[in-house]
């Protein structure tokens, strides 16, 4: 019984201030990765496609080749930097496009009841499709690459954004102040942009970071299968593909790209969690 009283007391207490640690750690990791990606646009130690058989498989820590070289003597540091850039660009583009399209259709579904059913059923259909199979078919028919990968990921991610936007917009639209705004003669468009969008934006930002991470993982998976990013571009998943195909799983070359993906994804997920706590302290109080 005392335990119960305690829990009642706890629920009456003023919410304790949540640690901002996940937010800070997540944001820092993400920032570092983005900076690495941006630097790689202007400078990398060596061209990622120039091979030099005389310096094959140099170990980590070799001067001028910090992470060593691969089975063709290509510089691993340069490949990792370029790979991080690819992950960031593809993850962010896919998440951003899904955010844009998903928000549009989600808000349409929420505010125009005639469109609700068709939009949601379409989203359901897209959700039921195994995305990776489609990406596979697409990549092998129209060719692999940035555009195909982003297109495939976007069509896979958008339904989730539609659902979330619709659900949270509906919640906002049922508030009293929306009825007041309507009575006041505000147009549907005005209400959508002035009241709904600002109120759902925090949820969408969190959703964006989560799908950014999912995009990074999916791109890596597709490239690992050989249907995502191919030479002359470089991606972390593709590096693992090459490492496994050429030298087997026992080589450390198979470690760094994987570690890179894990760090980036953990960073993004922590950032997402941190942002959610930041935007909605009540939620975190309840859930954590």
């Amino acid at each position, binding site marked *: 019984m005392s335990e119960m009283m305690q829990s009642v007391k706890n629920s009456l207490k003023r919410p304790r201030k949540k640690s901002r640690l996940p937010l800070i750690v997540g944001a820092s990791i993400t920032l570092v990765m983005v900076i690495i990606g941006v630097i790689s646009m202007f400078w990398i130690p060596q061209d990622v496609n120039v091979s030099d058989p005389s310096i094959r498989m140099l170990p980590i820590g070799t001067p001028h080749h910090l992470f060593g070289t691969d089975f063709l003597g290509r510089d691993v540091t340069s490949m990792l930097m370029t790979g991080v850039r690819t992950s960031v660009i593809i993850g962010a583009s896919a998440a951003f496009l899904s955010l844009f399209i998903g928000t549009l259709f989600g808000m349409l579904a929420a505010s125009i009841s005639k469109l609700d059913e068709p939009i949601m059923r379409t989203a359901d259909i897209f959700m*039921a499709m195994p995305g990776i199979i489609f990406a596979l078919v697409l990549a092998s028919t129209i060719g692999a690459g940035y555009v195909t990968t982003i297109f495939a990921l976007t069509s896979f991610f958008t339904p989730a954004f539609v659902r979330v936007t619709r659900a949270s917009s509906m919640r906002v639209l049922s508030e009293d102040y929306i009825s007041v705004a309507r009575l006041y003669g505000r147009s549907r468009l005005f209400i959508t942009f002035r009241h709904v969008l600002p109120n759902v934006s925090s949820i969408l930002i969190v959703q964006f970071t989560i799908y950014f991470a999912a995009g990074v993982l999916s791109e890596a998976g597709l490239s690992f*299968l050989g249907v995502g990013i191919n030479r002359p571009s470089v991606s972390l998943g593709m590096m693992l593909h090459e490492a*496994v195909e050429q030298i087997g799983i026992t080589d450390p070359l198979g470690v760094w790209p994987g570690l890179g993906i894990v760090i980036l994804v953990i960073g993004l997920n922590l950032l997402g969690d941190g942002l959610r706590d930041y935007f909605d302290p009540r939620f975190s109080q309840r859930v954590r």
Partner: protein
Amino acid sequence: MGRFILRRLAFFAITLLTTSVLIFTLIRAAGGNVAAILLGKNSSAEEIHKLSTELGLERPLPVQYFEWMGNFLHGNLGQAFRSKQLASHLIWSQAPVSVPLSLGGLILAIIIAIPLGTFAAKNFNRPSGAFVAVLSQIGIAVPVFWAGLLLSLVFGVHLHLLPTGGWVPWSENFVGALRSLALPVFTLGIVMASTLTRYTRTAILDVMNEDFVRTARASGMSRRVALIKVGLRNASLPLVTVLGLLAAEMVGGTVIIEKVYSLPGISRMILDNVTAREVVVVQSTVMVIVVYVMTINLIIDLAYGLLDPRIRVGK
């Protein structure tokens, strides 16, 4: 309940129909001139035209679609242009690898994640609970193929416990088949379990603060009993939704894991046939996979209705 099942079944049918149109359009639109690719580079326009007519690829697309779909519904999935092998035969020969792998992974994920997530929620303010939460956070970030590589490195290369890849058919050696599936299933299972653990934890934590759990506790149930009897059932609602999403992830994971462990499953078959432009085989295979995922979703949906009377009544 009857109306609920009917409505679900109707949606199931409509979704499959729409998806089939989509698959057909996508594969045909993106496939280029199939006959030209089948004949190779040094073929004349005449030959291409002749083969196209022979294969029925010259006819209007809607006609071809209805023919394909009509046959599909009658259980005839078509055949390969070159080898004349039946698509159904090709798909059926992959099933002994892909089906146990995907279902095994999903079931293992559920077995691991539900107790672990519940444990993490119950002990959310203790180090043990935090540890599970951190572990699942890391697990979510690990790409499924990398997990596969690391696990085969540990269990296959270093400990010599299990094969690192390859496939022994069931008929040849039952134990051998089990052994070659063990690591793939384990990999898929733990990767999916990390996502599911996290959702379970959140769902249970949400429920733990609900008034009805407090009431159950006040009525004399112990913390554990209240959580399992009242909590888990209510927490199962969001979880069932997540399971539906996992079913799609499961297919993706299966495709990748088959590649990691070089298993002769569905992913290799699709890749081979897409490259060879066996469009009918690809269409039918993708369609079969969609039916598979949708059936799992349907079962989950119906379970949803059983768990929550409100869903049955309709939204």
